[in-house]
């Protein structure tokens, strides 16, 4: 039974929510506006900015100076690659934690999360040396591995909480019917776990896309993703607001659009087992 809602209350809700929503979104909106202005106009007062001419100039300059698509494809490869590899390794682990739990399961989970607390900058030298030895410097493959390792604990944890929601009786029933482990995974669990896995993939693609320490420090020209692209537009000599805005919009647009299309999935899916 739905609660009776007066139109008045709905109006108030709408006004309040839209005001707050626009306020939170405003910084992004503003850089979108600035990215379509000339450098000289971009530093004027907000009203003057809005009144000035619109131009695509900054986008042309940015594209001419740095190969956006190379950086974009590197970002996609690294984000998607590390997430999928992580899922591949995490699904079996999370499955066994959820369905064959032992006394140590929670400890292992907590330990996994604690590996994320190692400050990255403290181990830059060791990892850099390791990368040189293994020939992984400036390769997308090397970054896929590192980002997979960084996000693996989160992936395992998310999957674990989703899998735990799947009722064990279904498994019992499947076993009665003579299903082996493989069949169990493939035909019974997977369909039920798909929404959870999808949410996990989404969140980790976002995290990997935005990672800016390793992606910047372990690359040069070939494997550099969008985080390196941005680093060439921050505070050069002279005016730079419009170009920085254009570069920023280009760097965040793909993930923003992906996020928007999948926001229903994200809103339903990001539970980390927080919902019974």
């Amino acid at each position: 039974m739905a609660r009776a809602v007066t139109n008045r209350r709905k109006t108030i809700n709408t006004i309040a929510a839209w005001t707050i929503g626009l306020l939170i979104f405003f910084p992004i909106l503003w850089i979108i506006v600035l990215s379509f202005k000339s450098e000289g106009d971009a530093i004027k007062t907000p009203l003057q900015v809005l009144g000035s001419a619109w131009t695509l100039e900054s986008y042309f300059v940015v594209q001419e100076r740095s190969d956006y698509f190379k950086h974009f494809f590197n970002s996609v490869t690294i984000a998607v690659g590390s997430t999928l590899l992580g899922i591949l390794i995490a699904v079996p682990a999370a499955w066994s934690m959820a369905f064959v739990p032992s006394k140590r399961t929670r400890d292992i989970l907590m330990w996994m999360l604690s590996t994320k607390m190692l400050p990255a900058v403290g181990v830059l030298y060791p990892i850099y040396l390791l990368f040189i030895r293994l020939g992984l410097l400036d390769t997308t493959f090397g970054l896929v591995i590192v980002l997979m390792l960084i996000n693996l604990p989160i992936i395992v944890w998310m999957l674990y909480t989703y899998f735990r929601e799947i009722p064990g009786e279904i498994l019992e029933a499947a076993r009665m019917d003579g299903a082996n482990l493989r069949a169990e995974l493939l035909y019974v669990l997977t369909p039920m776990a798909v929404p959870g896995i999808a949410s996990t993939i989404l969140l980790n693609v976002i995290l990997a896309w935005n990672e800016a320490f390793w992606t910047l420090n372990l690359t040069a020209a070939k494997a550099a993703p969008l985080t390196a692209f941005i680093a060439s537009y921050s505070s050069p000599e002279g005016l730079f607001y419009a170009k920085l805005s254009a570069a920023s919009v280009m760097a965040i647009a793909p993930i923003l659009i992906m996020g928007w299309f999948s926001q229903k999935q994200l809103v339903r899916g990001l539970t980390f087992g927080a919902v019974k």
Partner: protein
Amino acid sequence: MHIRNALRAATAVTLLIGAAASAETITIATVNNGDMIRMQGYTDDFTAKTGHEVEWVTLEENVLRQRVTTDITTKGGAFDIMTIGMYETPIWGANGWLVPLNDLSAEYDAADILPAMAGGLSHDGTLYAAPFYGESSMIMYRTDLMEKAGLEMPDAPTWTFIREAAAAMTDRDNDINGICLRGKAGWGEGGALITAMSNSFGARWFDMDWNAQFDTQPWKDTLEFFVGMMNESGPAGYATNGFNENLSLFQQGKCGMWIDATVAASFVTNPEDSTVADKVGFALAPDNGLGKRANWLWAWALAIPAGTQKAEAAKAFIEWATSKEYIELVAANEGWANVPPGARISLYENPNYQAVPFAKMTLQSILSADPNNSTVEPSPYVGVQFAAIPEFAGIATDVSQEFSAVYAGQQTVDEALAKAQALTNDAMEAAGYR
């Protein structure tokens, strides 16, 4: 006849193969300053001349430093050419990490490099990096405001005059600050300005036994003078202003004077970006009658990390980018005011360049800075606005953060100097100097 033709064909094929085999792709790490961005635009000219391709890694200054330092110390080999400064070059050269540039071709004319630049980019007399552009610092001032204040800027002013002129030019109602100076934390930002300024006040970073000197009177005088002057006539919030913030203020007509890098001259006189382009005058950085001026010396230079497989191609690039021809190429396309300055003697002998308003003062400023003898009292280090020892960047960043806290009114001059003294001595002890 047949044989000759066949031979000729064979030679042609060999030449082609030879050319193809030696054509390489080099990776260059560089900083995102205007002159380097312009250089990227001319890469095709280099490729057409040599057949080598170039991949650019363009990064913001701080990120670039962090990136190339990690790579050179671990011998990572991620780059074939690195853009570095006068601070890094002698240190890295001494460690044997850079390919010596003592065998550049005759057409390149290495003797044409300004001696001050070549000196700062060498170790033990061997050149380790070729200057792409060089700079000192000087005063840029508004001729109209100076006139309005009833003053005349001498070619070589004193700090006392500057302070008086700044106060006279300040017009808070019209948003005009008498003087804009860097206060931003960072050894290459506010740290560079205050160190160069301290030289003219008779201060130094270390005595001959590497003891920090922040407990001496000259440092106290420097800071108190700086803070006093900036509070009287500087912009609000100068504690976070660096090169860029001041450039933007000056271009918008909000500064009477600005003491900063000589390369800024081409920005403030460019009518496209600057509202005051036709009202800018230049003068030498001030002194205090002690024999040293408050100007620094810096060069962005190209160096080849030792161990690269592509040293020949890299050298070819350096010869191209820092050549006289490159300067002419830029001049032909974008005018003489936009060529990379401060690297070659011949540029300043060129009558076309002498017509550029800031050329003379830039050269004089560069010539008056001496990295080997930068302080009034003797010091054990090389460098004007820095000391070319590996520990300096870390220490000076910490010290300049303490100073910036003074500029922001968060601590007193004495507190900052005491902290600077303690942390410098501590770091020098950790490094084994004391």
